[in-house]
Protein backbone atom coordinates (compact mmCIF):
# COMPACT_ATOMS: atom_id res chain seq x y z
CA UNK A 1 0.00 0.00 0.00
CA UNK A 2 1.32 3.43 -0.79
CA UNK A 3 1.99 6.08 1.81
CA UNK A 4 -0.82 8.41 2.84
CA UNK A 5 -0.44 11.70 0.96
CA UNK A 6 -1.59 13.48 4.11
CA UNK A 7 1.79 12.77 5.64
CA UNK A 8 3.80 14.01 2.69
CA UNK A 9 6.95 12.29 1.47
CA UNK A 10 9.30 10.67 3.95
CA UNK A 11 12.54 12.60 4.05
CA UNK A 12 15.34 11.83 6.46
CA UNK A 13 15.66 15.07 8.44
CA UNK A 14 19.30 14.66 9.31
CA UNK A 15 20.10 14.03 5.69
CA UNK A 16 18.15 17.08 4.60
CA UNK A 17 20.04 19.18 7.14
CA UNK A 18 23.32 17.96 5.68
CA UNK A 19 22.21 18.85 2.19
CA UNK A 20 21.26 22.32 3.31
CA UNK A 21 24.60 22.76 5.00
CA UNK A 22 26.33 21.76 1.77
CA UNK A 23 24.23 24.27 -0.11
CA UNK A 24 25.49 27.01 2.17
CA UNK A 25 29.19 26.33 2.00
CA UNK A 26 29.05 25.18 -1.62
CA UNK A 27 30.85 21.90 -1.08
CA UNK A 28 29.70 18.90 -3.06
CA UNK A 29 31.36 15.98 -1.37
CA UNK A 30 29.35 12.75 -1.39
CA UNK A 31 27.14 12.42 1.66
CA UNK A 32 27.38 9.00 3.21
CA UNK A 33 24.01 7.69 4.21
CA UNK A 34 22.14 4.62 5.28
CA UNK A 35 18.76 6.28 4.75
CA UNK A 36 17.65 4.17 1.79
CA UNK A 37 14.00 4.82 2.55
CA UNK A 38 14.43 8.57 2.19
CA UNK A 39 12.57 10.13 -0.73
CA UNK A 40 14.56 12.20 -3.21
CA UNK A 41 13.30 15.78 -2.98
CA UNK A 42 14.15 18.63 -5.39
CA UNK A 43 16.66 20.03 -2.87
CA UNK A 44 18.86 16.99 -3.49
CA UNK A 45 19.43 17.71 -7.19
CA UNK A 46 23.09 18.08 -8.05
CA UNK A 47 24.28 16.55 -4.79
CA UNK A 48 26.03 13.24 -4.60
CA UNK A 49 25.04 10.59 -2.10
CA UNK A 50 26.87 7.49 -1.07
CA UNK A 51 24.01 5.12 -0.36
CA UNK A 52 24.71 2.02 1.67
CA UNK A 53 23.50 -1.27 0.22
CA UNK A 54 24.30 -3.37 3.27
CA UNK A 55 27.90 -3.81 2.24
CA UNK A 56 29.31 -0.87 0.34
CA UNK A 57 28.32 2.71 -0.46
CA UNK A 58 27.20 3.41 -4.01
CA UNK A 59 27.80 6.95 -5.17
CA UNK A 60 24.80 8.47 -6.83
CA UNK A 61 24.57 11.88 -8.43
CA UNK A 62 20.98 13.04 -8.16
CA UNK A 63 19.46 14.41 -11.36
CA UNK A 64 16.09 16.07 -11.74
CA UNK A 65 14.21 13.03 -13.03
CA UNK A 66 15.15 11.04 -9.94
CA UNK A 67 12.87 13.17 -7.79
CA UNK A 68 10.15 11.14 -6.11
CA UNK A 69 12.14 7.93 -5.99
CA UNK A 70 13.77 6.58 -2.83
CA UNK A 71 17.52 6.66 -2.40
CA UNK A 72 17.59 2.90 -1.98
CA UNK A 73 16.24 2.36 -5.47
CA UNK A 74 19.59 3.46 -6.87
CA UNK A 75 21.80 1.27 -4.75
CA UNK A 76 21.31 -2.39 -5.61
CA UNK A 77 21.47 -4.92 -2.80
CA UNK A 78 21.86 -8.02 -4.92
CA UNK A 79 24.83 -9.00 -6.97
CA UNK A 80 24.02 -11.32 -9.85
CA UNK A 81 27.07 -12.61 -11.64
CA UNK A 82 25.32 -15.04 -13.98
CA UNK A 83 24.98 -18.78 -13.76
CA UNK A 84 27.81 -21.23 -14.33
CA UNK A 85 26.69 -22.11 -17.83
CA UNK A 86 26.49 -18.46 -18.88
CA UNK A 87 30.02 -17.80 -17.72
CA UNK A 88 31.78 -20.49 -19.75
CA UNK A 89 31.02 -18.78 -23.07
Amino acid at each position, binding site marked *: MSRSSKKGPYVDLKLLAKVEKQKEDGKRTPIKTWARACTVVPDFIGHTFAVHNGKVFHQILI*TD*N*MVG*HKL*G*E*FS*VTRNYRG*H*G*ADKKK
Partner: protein
Amino acid sequence: MPRILGVDIPNNKKVPFSLAGIYGVGLVRARLICEKCGIDQDKRAFELSDDELAQLTNFIDKNFVVEGNLRREVQGNIARFREIGCYRGRRHAAGLPVRGQRSKTNARTRKGRKKTVANKKILRK
Protein backbone atom coordinates in the same frame (compact mmCIF):
# COMPACT_ATOMS: atom_id res chain seq x y z
CA MET B 1 -17.96 -0.89 -38.90
CA PRO B 2 -17.75 2.40 -37.02
CA ARG B 3 -14.42 4.11 -36.62
CA ILE B 4 -13.27 6.09 -33.61
CA LEU B 5 -10.00 7.94 -33.21
CA GLY B 6 -8.52 6.90 -36.53
CA VAL B 7 -7.44 3.33 -36.18
CA ASP B 8 -9.90 1.73 -33.87
CA ILE B 9 -12.68 -0.26 -35.44
CA PRO B 10 -14.96 -1.51 -32.68
CA ASN B 11 -17.42 -4.21 -33.68
CA ASN B 12 -21.03 -5.22 -33.29
CA LYS B 13 -21.01 -5.35 -29.51
CA LYS B 14 -22.87 -3.00 -27.22
CA VAL B 15 -21.29 0.44 -27.18
CA PRO B 16 -19.39 0.28 -23.86
CA PHE B 17 -17.82 -3.07 -24.71
CA SER B 18 -16.98 -1.84 -28.13
CA LEU B 19 -15.30 1.26 -26.74
CA ALA B 20 -13.25 -0.93 -24.44
CA GLY B 21 -11.46 -2.09 -27.59
CA ILE B 22 -9.59 1.19 -27.53
CA TYR B 23 -6.19 1.03 -25.81
CA GLY B 24 -6.57 3.12 -22.68
CA VAL B 25 -10.33 2.68 -22.36
CA GLY B 26 -11.61 -0.09 -20.14
CA LEU B 27 -15.14 -0.92 -19.15
CA VAL B 28 -15.30 1.66 -16.39
CA ARG B 29 -14.16 4.47 -18.64
CA ALA B 30 -16.30 3.23 -21.51
CA ARG B 31 -19.44 3.38 -19.35
CA LEU B 32 -18.47 6.83 -18.10
CA ILE B 33 -17.99 8.04 -21.66
CA CYS B 34 -21.41 6.73 -22.70
CA GLU B 35 -23.00 8.39 -19.73
CA LYS B 36 -21.36 11.75 -20.39
CA CYS B 37 -22.21 11.64 -24.07
CA GLY B 38 -25.76 10.60 -23.33
CA ILE B 39 -25.63 7.41 -25.34
CA ASP B 40 -27.85 4.44 -24.61
CA GLN B 41 -25.59 1.70 -23.33
CA ASP B 42 -27.72 -1.07 -24.80
CA LYS B 43 -27.20 0.25 -28.27
CA ARG B 44 -24.90 -1.69 -30.57
CA ALA B 45 -21.83 0.00 -32.00
CA PHE B 46 -23.01 -0.22 -35.60
CA GLU B 47 -26.22 1.63 -34.69
CA LEU B 48 -24.32 4.78 -33.74
CA SER B 49 -25.00 7.77 -35.93
CA ASP B 50 -22.19 9.88 -37.35
CA ASP B 51 -23.06 12.62 -34.91
CA GLU B 52 -22.75 10.31 -31.94
CA LEU B 53 -19.46 8.96 -33.23
CA ALA B 54 -18.09 12.46 -33.59
CA GLN B 55 -19.27 13.27 -30.10
CA LEU B 56 -17.58 10.18 -28.66
CA THR B 57 -14.34 10.85 -30.50
CA ASN B 58 -14.35 14.42 -29.33
CA PHE B 59 -15.03 13.50 -25.71
CA ILE B 60 -12.35 10.82 -25.54
CA ASP B 61 -9.82 13.05 -27.24
CA LYS B 62 -10.42 15.84 -24.77
CA ASN B 63 -10.42 13.83 -21.57
CA PHE B 64 -8.16 10.82 -21.91
CA VAL B 65 -4.77 9.85 -23.22
CA VAL B 66 -5.34 6.81 -25.42
CA GLU B 67 -3.75 4.62 -28.09
CA GLY B 68 -0.45 5.84 -29.54
CA ASN B 69 0.03 8.67 -27.08
CA LEU B 70 -0.60 6.41 -24.11
CA ARG B 71 1.75 3.75 -25.44
CA ARG B 72 4.41 6.38 -25.94
CA GLU B 73 3.86 7.69 -22.43
CA VAL B 74 4.32 4.24 -20.93
CA GLN B 75 7.42 3.57 -23.03
CA GLY B 76 8.77 6.95 -21.98
CA ASN B 77 8.31 6.11 -18.32
CA ILE B 78 10.16 2.84 -18.73
CA ALA B 79 12.95 4.61 -20.61
CA ARG B 80 13.24 7.08 -17.74
CA PHE B 81 13.51 4.28 -15.17
CA ARG B 82 16.29 2.69 -17.19
CA GLU B 83 18.14 5.93 -17.62
CA ILE B 84 18.24 6.85 -13.95
CA GLY B 85 19.31 3.33 -13.03
CA CYS B 86 16.66 2.77 -10.40
CA TYR B 87 15.53 -0.68 -9.33
CA ARG B 88 12.54 -0.79 -11.65
CA GLY B 89 14.71 0.27 -14.58
CA ARG B 90 17.17 -2.50 -13.86
CA ARG B 91 14.40 -5.07 -13.73
CA HIS B 92 13.07 -3.89 -17.06
CA ALA B 93 16.55 -4.05 -18.56
CA ALA B 94 17.12 -7.55 -17.19
CA GLY B 95 13.75 -8.82 -18.42
CA LEU B 96 12.69 -9.87 -14.95
CA PRO B 97 9.45 -9.13 -13.06
CA VAL B 98 9.37 -5.50 -11.99
CA ARG B 99 6.84 -5.48 -9.17
CA GLY B 100 8.42 -7.71 -6.61
CA GLN B 101 7.10 -11.06 -7.82
CA ARG B 102 9.11 -14.18 -7.15
CA SER B 103 11.57 -15.20 -9.81
CA LYS B 104 13.01 -18.37 -8.32
CA THR B 105 10.22 -20.21 -10.08
CA ASN B 106 7.51 -19.02 -12.45
CA ALA B 107 7.86 -15.50 -13.89
CA ARG B 108 7.80 -17.17 -17.29
CA THR B 109 5.92 -14.29 -18.90
CA ARG B 110 8.84 -11.97 -18.30
CA LYS B 111 11.65 -14.47 -18.60
CA GLY B 112 10.36 -16.18 -21.73
CA ARG B 113 10.45 -19.90 -22.39
CA LYS B 114 12.38 -22.16 -20.08
CA LYS B 115 16.05 -22.49 -20.84
CA THR B 116 17.09 -25.97 -19.79
CA VAL B 117 20.50 -26.27 -18.23
CA ALA B 118 22.11 -29.63 -18.94
CA ASN B 119 23.03 -31.75 -15.91
CA LYS B 120 21.83 -29.13 -13.47
CA LYS B 121 20.58 -31.75 -11.01
CA ILE B 122 23.78 -33.76 -11.07
CA LEU B 123 25.91 -30.70 -10.48
CA ARG B 124 23.93 -29.74 -7.44
CA LYS B 125 24.78 -32.95 -5.57
